[in-house]
């Protein structure tokens, strides 16, 4: 019997078609990011462009955390710390880099980096390059931190590991808060300061102010595309299966030859890298001031909500949940866009209801139908509720965290695997479950021939 290695070599395809297949998703991602930047932004307006920007950052965060919490089942609740590290590294590089290079920390980017319309600028400038480089640097430093935090996972599991990650996050936060001092404003000040003291000049408890707003839809969604691509390709490979197997059963996984410690640390490092990138994007977003107080464990909990609601291990689930969690407060504040769609939603709910009734009458399982109907109806109800509340002088957007907390608890009780479980939106088996509810119930204990 030939070994796997020799068979692999036999089956290795030619290099050129492989290259095309490897690269095209990234090209599509770049295309989408460009389209968002140059076509979508002028259409949807500044406000929604900003919402879209936040959604993009959230997606990167949620998908990166999915790689740890979802794939390997290690429970990290200090993810915001990596974001913070990446944000500060990237912010520091851009701020002081601009100061040294151009004498001012103002935005020196081109049209790709602009969130402001009608600005005459070249397509791409050195400022953009500095920004892109700083993102990677922030990611790398965060990845190093991820390695450090990943190491305890050699010995700790479950809630203990969770607490360590939380402790790590708090330590990072307190260190930045208390051991750094005011930002330097002029080139002279920078030149007078010893180089090794520069990392401490990032603003302390007051936050890192004056960062230029480089984060545009293009950069953010380029980041989203890369993150999604990496996450999906990892999941759909030997590495990803090893991650998931650790989550499912660590002992069996080890018995199948998976070096569980190594893979856990890998997951931490990769996740931290992308969280760091997201932090860099966040730091340079319009309307954001990088402040350690905002990136404590409550921010980590925000990311966890996205990951858990989406389904522990589902990339698309995390991305969708990130979008919902980000957009819902806005919708609750101003439900009109949602309410414009109410006939569609109501129609959908009605169709689902009829289908569920038909299933029930013919003795078939209709649980997933009912579940989807509930989701649609909840959306509708939230819309109308928000409008009613707004009329009464309340803003339902303020109650978003209560809603998410309740959703989290209910999800754990009713659908512990999250909306999608480990499966992706495009997985056939996910929809097969729904399709099955239309067909006769499966026979129990069927044996195989």
């Amino acid at each position: 019997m030939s070994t796997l290695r020799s068979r692999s070599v036999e089956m290795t395809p030619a290099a050129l078609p492989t290259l095309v297949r490897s690269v095209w998703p990234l090209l599509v991602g770049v295309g989408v990011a460009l389209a968002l930047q140059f076509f979508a932004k002028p259409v949807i307006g500044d406000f929604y462009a900003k919402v879209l920007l936040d959604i993009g950052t959230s997606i990167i965060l949620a998908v990166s955390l999915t790689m740890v919490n979802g794939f390997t089942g290690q429970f990290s609740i200090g993810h915001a710390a990596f974001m913070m590290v990446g944000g500060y590294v990237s912010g520091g590089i851009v701020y002081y880099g601009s100061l040294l290079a151009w004498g001012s920390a103002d935005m020196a980017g081109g049209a790709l980096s602009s969130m402001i319309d009608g600005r005459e600028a070249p397509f791409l400038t050195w400022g953009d390059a500095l920004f892109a480089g700083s993102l990677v640097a922030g990611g790398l430093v965060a990845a190093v931190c991820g390695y450090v935090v990943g190491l305890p996972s050699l010995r700790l599991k479950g809630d203990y590991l969770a607490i360590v990650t939380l402790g790590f996050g708090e330590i990072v936060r307190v260190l930045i808060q208390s051991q750094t001092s005011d930002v330097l404003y002029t080139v002279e000040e920078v030149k007078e300061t010893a180089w090794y003291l520069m990392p401490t000049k990032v603003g302390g408890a007051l936050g890192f102010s004056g960062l230029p707003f480089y984060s545009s839809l293009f950069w953010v969604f380029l980041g989203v595309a890369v993150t999604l691509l990496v996450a999906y390709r990892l999941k759909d490979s030997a590495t990803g299966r090893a991650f998931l197997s650790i989550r499912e059963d660590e002992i069996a996984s080890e018995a199948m030859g998976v070096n569980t410690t190594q893979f856990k640390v890998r997951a931490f490092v990769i996740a931290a890298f992308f969280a760091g990138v997201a932090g860099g994007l966040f730091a340079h977003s319009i309307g954001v001031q990088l402040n350690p107080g905002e990136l404590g464990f409550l921010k980590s909990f925000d990311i966890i909500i996205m990951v858990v609601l989406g389904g522990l291990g589902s990339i698309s689930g995390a991305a969708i949940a990130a979008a919902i969690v980000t957009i819902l407060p806005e919708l609750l504040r101003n439900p009109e866009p949602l309410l414009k769609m109410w006939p569609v939603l109501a129609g959908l709910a009605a169709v689902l209801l009829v289908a569920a009734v038909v299933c029930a009458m013919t003795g078939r399982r209709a649980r997933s139908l009912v579940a989807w109907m509930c989701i649609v109806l909840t959306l509708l109800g939230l819309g109308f509720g928000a409008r009613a509340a707004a009329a009464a002088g309340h803003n339902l957007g303020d109650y978003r965290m209560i809603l998410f907390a309740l959703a989290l608890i209910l999800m754990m009780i009713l659908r512990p695997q999250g909306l999608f479980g480990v499966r992706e939106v495009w997985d056939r088996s996910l929809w097969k479950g729904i399709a099955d509810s239309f067909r006769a119930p499966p026979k129990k204990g069927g044996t195989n021939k």
Partner: protein
Amino acid sequence: MTPPTDAVLEVRSICKSFGGLKAVQEFNLTLPRGSLRGLIGPNGAGKTTVFNLLTGVYKPDVGSVVLGGREITGMRPFRIAGAGLSRTFQNIRLFGELSVLDNVRLGCHVRAQHGVFRSIVRTPFHRGEERAIEASARRLLGVVGLLGRADEQAKNLPYGDQRRLEIARALATEPRVLLLDEPAAGMNSQEKVALRALIQRLRKEFDATILLIEHDMGVVMDICERITVLDYGKTIAEGTPDEVQSNPAVIEAYLGADADAGSSHAASKGGR
């Protein structure tokens, strides 16, 4: 003492105690290539502990395990799996949320290169490897008769199928020795017949060397060439099925202490 050249697994007097309890004492085993050995004994005799010692879940206090001429004593489980010792579990430990196919593909993990960078960039070799993994996984699923269920989640399989999936997963590591921990437990008689056929087929097609823990004596006595009997961590008998069945020590271990002496004793005192 040099091991016989054809011994693929050589266990030399391993011992393990937990606290004061001597779970396994002086356990010896020599498995020639292609053999099928049964390991039986009453509850708590230390059978699964032996498996755990062999596969690195526990480290033996003393003694050594040699696999294919290579000392594997005290290695971490994943290294032992890499060295060619693979197992199934008494209480099934499948990756429930993953598909049946992915479970077996994971078994191929230990023979694969699995670089993070390669996976992301999808190098030609990576694609070839993934194809090879999928091909061998599907072949193994065919062998255990689960090909039709490849895309289902493992946790949704019926019990007997789960047992067979565990065997396929263990085979996917291309082991030198396969350890099966109660593969027939919880199976109905029909499934047991199929299991016997499967094990015979594994020996024929894969030239597998198998160590089998099993409580179903029907299965054990039927397919094993030799049987080792454990009781209280000690090896109390070893031999062919017939020898073992007629061994008084074995009968005592299974059916209870010397019946007559014990009961007359009890009866005389019980009447007080």
